[in-house]
C-alpha cells in the first residue's frame, strides 16, 4: 500500500500517489458526479432493453426496437429504390433514342450505368471500357453491330452468340484455313491485303493477289472495301483498329480458325431499366453515334 499522509496546507489526506513531489489529495468527489454516474447506468439499462445488445450462444437479444445495422441498410436501400422509382418508370416509358434528350434521365443513366458497368461488364471489357483482344473497346468509334443508342441497347439486351436469347446477335466466320476453303498461300495473300487496306506494313505483290481472293470470299460480309458489315457484326478491316490484334500472325490465326466473342443477354438478368441505363452510359463514353 502506498503512503497515505495528511497534507500540511490543506489538512486533507493524500491518496499516497506522488509525482515529482506533487501529491494527490483525496478530496471527496462532488455528489452530482455520482448522480451522472447513476444516470449513465440507467441509460445503459434502457439501451440494452431497446437495442440488440447481449450476445447469446446462437443468437442475441433483439431489444424492443429490433433494429440492426442490417435492417437499417435494408431500410435505406428500399428508400433509395423508392426514391428512384419515378425515374425508373420514366426511363422505361421513354423511347431509347430519346433518353439522352432528358437531362434528368441522362444523369440517371450515366450514373446508374457507370455502377452497373463496374459490376457486370468490367470482367471482359475492362474497368475503363478499354477492352482487350477479342473484347471490343467501348470508348472508340469502331462498332461491330452499330454505335447508336438503340443498337447498343439491342446488343446489350439480347447479347451476342448466346443460347439464352433467341434474338441474340449471331454470325459466324468460316474457318477458311481450318476447313480448307482457302489454300494456305491464299490465306496469306488475303492477310497481306487486309494489312494493306488498314495502312500497315505489307507485301504489295501478295496484297494484289489477296484483293481478288478477298472480293470472292470475304466481301460478302466485310464489304467490298473491307469496311465491315454491321448486319453481320463483321469488323471494319480497313481502319487502324482490330479486334484480335493488327499484326500478321493474329490475322492469319483469325482467318485460319476464327474466334468468336460471346456476350450474355443482359435483358433477362438486369431488367429493362438497367439495360437502358447501360446503353446510354456506353454511348456516352466518347464513341457513340
Amino acid at each position, binding site marked *: 500500500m502506498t503512503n497515505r499522509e495528511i497534507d*500540511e*496546507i490543506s489538512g486533507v489526506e493524500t491518496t499516497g500517489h506522488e509525482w515529482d513531489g506533487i501529491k494527490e489529495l483525496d*478530496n*471527496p*468527489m*462532488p*455528489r*452530482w*458526479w*455520482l448522480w451522472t454516474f447513476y444516470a449513465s447506468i440507467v441509460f445503459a439499462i434502457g439501451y440494452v432493453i431497446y437495442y440488440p445488445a447481449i450476445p447469446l450462444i446462437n443468437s442475441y437479444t433483439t431489444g424492443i426496437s429490433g433494429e440492426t445495422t442490417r435492417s437499417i441498410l435494408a431500410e435505406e436501400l428500399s428508400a433509395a429504390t423508392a426514391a428512384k422509382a419515378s425515374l425508373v418508370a420514366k426511363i422505361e416509358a421513354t423511347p431509347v433514342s430519346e433518353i*439522352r434528350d432528358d437531362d434528368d434521365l*441522362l444523369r440517371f443513366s450515366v450514373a446508374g450505368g457507370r455502377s452497373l458497368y463496374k459490376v457486370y461488364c468490367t470482367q471482359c471489357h*475492362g*474497368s*475503363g*471500357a*478499354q477492352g482487350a483482344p477479342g473484347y471490343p*473497346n467501348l*470508348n*472508340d*468509334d*469502331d462498332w461491330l453491330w452499330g454505335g447508336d443508342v438503340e443498337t447498343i441497347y439491342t446488343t446489350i439486351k439480347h447479347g451476342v452468340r448466346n443460347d439464352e436469347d433467341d434474338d441474340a446477335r449471331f454470325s459466324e466466320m468460316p474457318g477458311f484455313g481450318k476447313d480448307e476453303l482457302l489454300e494456305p498461300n491464299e490465306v496469306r495473300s488475303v492477310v497481306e491485303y487486309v494489312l494493306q487496306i488498314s*495502312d500497315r506494313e505489307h507485301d504489295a505483290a501478295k496484297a494484289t493477289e489477296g484483293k481478288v481472293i478477298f472480293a470472292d470470299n470475304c466481301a460478302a460480309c466485310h464489304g467490298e472495301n473491307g469496311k465491315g458489315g454491321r448486319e453481320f457484326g463483321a469488323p*471494319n478491316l480497313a*481502319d*487502324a*483498329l482490330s479486334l484480335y490484334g493488327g499484326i500478321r500472325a493474329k490475322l492469319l490465326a483469325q482467318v485460319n480458325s476464327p474466334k468468336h466473342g460471346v456476350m450474355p443477354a443482359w435483358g433477362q438478368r438486369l431488367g429493362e431499366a438497367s439495360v437502358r441505363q447501360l446503353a446510354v452510359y456506353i454511348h*456516352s463514353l*466518347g*464513341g457513340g453515334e
Partner: protein
Amino acid sequence: MDTKTQSRVETFDAQAVNKKENRDLYEARKKIHPKRAEGWYRQLKWWIMAVTLGIYYITPWLRWDRGEYAPDQAVLLDVANRRFYFFFIEIWPHEFFYVAGLLVMAGIGLFLVTSTVGRAWCGYSCPQTVWVDLFLVFERFFEGDRNQRIKLDAAPWTISKIRKRVSKHIIWLMISIATGGAWIFYFADAPTLFVELFSGQAAFVAYTTVAVLTATTYVFGGFMREQVCTYMCPWPRIQAAMLDENSLTVTYNDWRGEPRTKHAKKAKREGIPIGDCVDCNACVVVCPMGIDIRDGQQLECITCALCIDACDGVMSKIGLDKGLISYSTLGIYDANMALASTLPENMAAKSEAEFSIAKMAAIDPKKVRDDSGKLFSHFVHASWRTVVRLRTIIYTALYCLIGLALIVSLLTRSNLNVNVLHDRNPIFVTLSDGSIRNGYEIKILNMLAEPSRFNVRLEGLPNAFVKIAGDDKNLGQNFTIDVDADKLRATRIYITVPKADITGTNVKLRLVVNRQGDNEEATYDANFVAPNGAK
C-alpha cells in the same frame, strides 16, 4: 480479562466524528449566494456582458446583401451547401485553412491573454461566467440580495416563496430557450427558421439542438455554476500551467493587510501593530466561486475581480488606499513581501506550509507605513508596463503576423479555380482513322455570386480539336463553359489529335480559362498521351 479488571476502566459510548469510515466519499454542493458588488470591475463586466450577449443573440439577424444567388445572412454556417459566410467573406470547403488559421490565432491569443492578464477569459468573457451573471441578475430581482436569499432558502414554503421561485425559474427557462434557439440561427436563414421553429416545420435536429442547449444553459447557469468551472472545465488546469511570475492575477496583498483584525480602533489604542485588512469578509460574500481570496491563489478563482471592487469600497470608506486586493503579479507580490517583512535570511523552513506561516508572521506593519500612515513609496504596483515584456511582445507579433497573412491571402485570392483531370483509364483511345483521343474532366469553380461564362483555350497541340462529351460538335481549340453562380462545374471534354500530328507519347498542353467580362484568368497544364508507335 476478568470482570474485576474491566470494572475499573471507565468506557465511553462514543465514536470519533471524523473517523475515517465516517467521512463521506461524496460531497454535496454547498450553495453560494454571491452578493452584488459595485465598482469599476463590476461596471466593466456589465459592459462586456452586454456586448457578448448582444453579439450572440443579434448576429444571426444581421443581413448582408450578396445578390440573388447567395444568402443574405451576414454570418451563416451553411453546412448543407458547404459554405461559410462572414459579412464580405465567403469561405469554400477547400479554403478551410482560413479556419485553421483562425484556430492558430485563437491558440496564440490564449497564450497572449494568459501570460498578460491571467485567467481574464474565465472572469469576463467565458459564456459560463456571462450566463451565470445574467441568471444572478434575475435571481436578485426576484429574491433579493445575498442575505434575503439565504433567508428565503431557509424559510418554509409559503405562497410568496413559491411565487418568487416560480418567477425566477420561468425567466431562467426563457433565457435558456432563447440561448439554445439563437445557436441554430447561425446554421440556417434566421427569419425562415424562426417561423419554421414555431410552426413545427423545422427539422428534428433543430429541435433537438435547441432542447439540449436549453437544458445545458438552464442547468449550468442556474444550478451547477461554479461546479462547472471547478470540476468540469479543463481551462483552470491548462491556464494554471501557462501563468508565470509576471502574469496578472487577482491578489490579496497580505504584506499590507496582515495582521488582520476586526477591532482596528481598539488595537490602535493599545498600540498593537495591525495591517489594513479589517476582516469584514466583503471579499468573501461577493465571490461567485465561494472562496476567500485571502487564502492566496486558488484553482477555483476565475479572476472576476469582484473582490477587488468589494475591498476597494471598504478601503475608501475607512480612508485607506485602494488596492488591498488588486491585480498583481507573483513577482511584484514577492518584492513587496520582502520589503514588508523581517524574515530572517536563510530561514531553514521544513516545508512550504511552514514557510508561508513564518512569512505571514514576519510581516511588520511598521515597514509598510510611515509614521503619518502613508504607504512607503518603494512598494511596487502593477501598471501597463507589467504586461509589456519579451514574451508578450513575441506573442503579439506572431498573432498579428498570422492575422495579416490571412487578410492578405483573403484579399488576393482568385475567384476562379480550374482543375483538369486526365482520364486514368483508358489514358488514351485510338480511333478508327488512327487519330488519338484523350479524355479530360475540366472543373471550373466559379466563386462569384453570379453566373459566368468562361472562355477556354487549348494551347500546345496545334491541330488538335476539342469535343464536349455528349456533343458531337467539333469545337476546334476554343470553347465556352457556363458555370452557375457560386458553383463548381465539371465538364468532360475529349481532345483528339490526328495521326499525322502526333509528336510524342507525352505532349504538354495548357488550358487557359478566363471569365468573360473581367480579367480573371487561370491556366492548367496537362499532358496528352499517345501510345508508342502512334507517330
